[in-house]
């Protein structure tokens, strides 16, 4: 961090505080330029691009299947959801019908990944507010979930599980039992989480009423996902603009009204329970069958364009895909929820004390891989 003093136009001394790109709590390589008047922030300017890898350009020189493998690295916490949106977009261009079992497996994996993401959020958010134990607890449960992923697709983070027209592998023996146990274990651990963090008075003091986002701001800044629903807008793409077979499942869309850091935290905790509910339903509904539709070996969708929206744990994850009839996409654009949710920082950080910056940043839940792409 470098500090220096500047004079603003009225002659008051302000300080420029440079936070990041290497900072333990910025969730990666985000840089925040903060102009401070004492402890209060006058102006905040996020500076991104420290992880800009040019993935949208690279997509144009990779095949569609390789693009699914590359999409693991968009948002590396929710790789399954990235796989999902890429596969859906290609399938929309191709117009293939996906076998029932593959649909269920996709939803199972996407929801498991939602659980993993929200566990990580829980850990990192509590860590940002000074509670280390929560992160250790969170990672303990995450390892259990990763073991499930590993047994299905053979990797811990970059799964590459989805194929155009289905999924790559069927479940191994004993998976359903293990996943059922995981859901049961997770339910009991969630009670621990509430005892440990949610009910803690220090935690509440540092998050209740901090970083309020109004309904109008949510719409103006196109925020999505838990950040949107924490401000009282009930909109979930899984319900309102449904895709895959989500309409067969019974789950609630939780909403909170205040839009502060605590509500955004609670949103994730409530969504985690809903995701567990969906996983349980999938495990019951699974029936043997095909897992891969008949698609040509070299995928060449007809020329055209498709825009697919999905609900990733971070918000609205959408993909705009243009095909020109060759084996590589002509243009691939990711509507990254973290990228768009992060814009609100410029607005809500103004007038906030510097100690709350990390709380607000943590509550928005960003992954820099997705912000910069």
């Amino acid at each position, binding site marked *: 961090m470098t500090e220096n003093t500047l004079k603003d136009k009225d002659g008051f001394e302000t300080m420029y505080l440079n936070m990041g790109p290497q900072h333990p709590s910025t969730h990666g390589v985000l840089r925040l330029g903060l102009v401070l008047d004492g402890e209060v922030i006058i102006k905040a300017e996020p500076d991104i*691009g420290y992880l800009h890898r040019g993935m949208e350009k690279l997509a144009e020189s990779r095949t569609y299947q390789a693009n699914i493998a590359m999409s693991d690295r968009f948002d590396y916490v929710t790789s399954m959801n990235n796989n999902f949106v890429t596969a859906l977009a290609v399938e929309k261009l191709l117009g293939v019908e996906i076998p029932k079992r593959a649909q269920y497996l996709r939803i199972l994996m996407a929801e498991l990944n939602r659980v993993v993401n929200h566990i990580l959020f829980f850990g990192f958010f509590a860590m940002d507010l000074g509670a280390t134990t929560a992160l250790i607890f969170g990672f303990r449960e995450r390892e259990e979930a990763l073991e499930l992923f590993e047994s299905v697709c053979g990797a811990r983070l970059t799964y590459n599980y989805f194929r155009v027209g289905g999924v790559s592998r069927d479940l191994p023996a004993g998976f359903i039992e293990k996943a059922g146990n995981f859901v049961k274990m997770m339910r009991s651990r969630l009670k621990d989480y509430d005892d440990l963090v949610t009910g803690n008075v220090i935690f509440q003091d540092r998050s209740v009423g901090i970083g309020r986002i109004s309904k109008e701001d949510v*719409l*103006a*800044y*196109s925020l999505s996902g838990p950040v949107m629903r924490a401000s009282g807008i009930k909109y979930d793409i899984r319900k309102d603009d449904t895709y895959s077979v989500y309409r067969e499942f019974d789950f609630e869309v939780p909403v909170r009204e205040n839009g502060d850091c605590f509500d955004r935290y609670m949103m994730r905790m409530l969504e985690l329970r809903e995701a567990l509910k969906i996983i349980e339903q999938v495990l019951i509904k699974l029936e043997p069958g095909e897992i891969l539709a008949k698609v040509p070996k070299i995928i060449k969708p007809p020329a055209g364009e498709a825009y697919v929206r999905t609900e990733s744990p971070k918000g609205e994850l*959408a993909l705009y895909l243009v095909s020109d009839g060759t084996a590589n996409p002509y243009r691939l654009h990711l509507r990254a929820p973290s990228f768009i949710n992060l814009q609100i920082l410029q607005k809500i950080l103004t007038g906030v004390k510097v100690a709350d910056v990390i709380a607000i940043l943590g509550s928005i839940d960003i992954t820099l891989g997705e912000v910069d792409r």
Partner: protein
Amino acid sequence: MDAQKYLNEIKGRFPGTADAAPERIKDGVPALLCPAPFLFEIVKYLKAEGFNYLMDLCATDYRDSLEVIYHFCALETNVKLTVKVRLDREKPELASITPLYPGADWQEREAFDLLGINFPGHPDLKNLLLPCGWEGHPLRKDYSRKPDQYD
């Protein structure tokens, strides 16, 4: 097809607007191709008509021209609408919609950075993702780059 109603309304009001190749768009969302000078007015009209959510803004290089695509959604009724603008490749300029949708801020900066589209009216148009002083616009199809010390 509720959105078609708005589409026809716009086509009547602003001369030069047309449907944008519906056979290309696979998800069935009505798309509008509008001339660049009218864009701001059309978006203003759409916002007044209840399209309160800007889903996405991105640009594509079609070798002969640049295309900017806006995806709008009305959250209450869940009606979606796509607006497309074709721009000259040599001197691409398009009115910024950031005053209407503050969420377009970074997306326009991204298009400026990666495709070199200029958005007059944007409050702070500078590069976002690439380092300062980067030459060229990587997402253009004819982009080529000299190897530097990191390659």
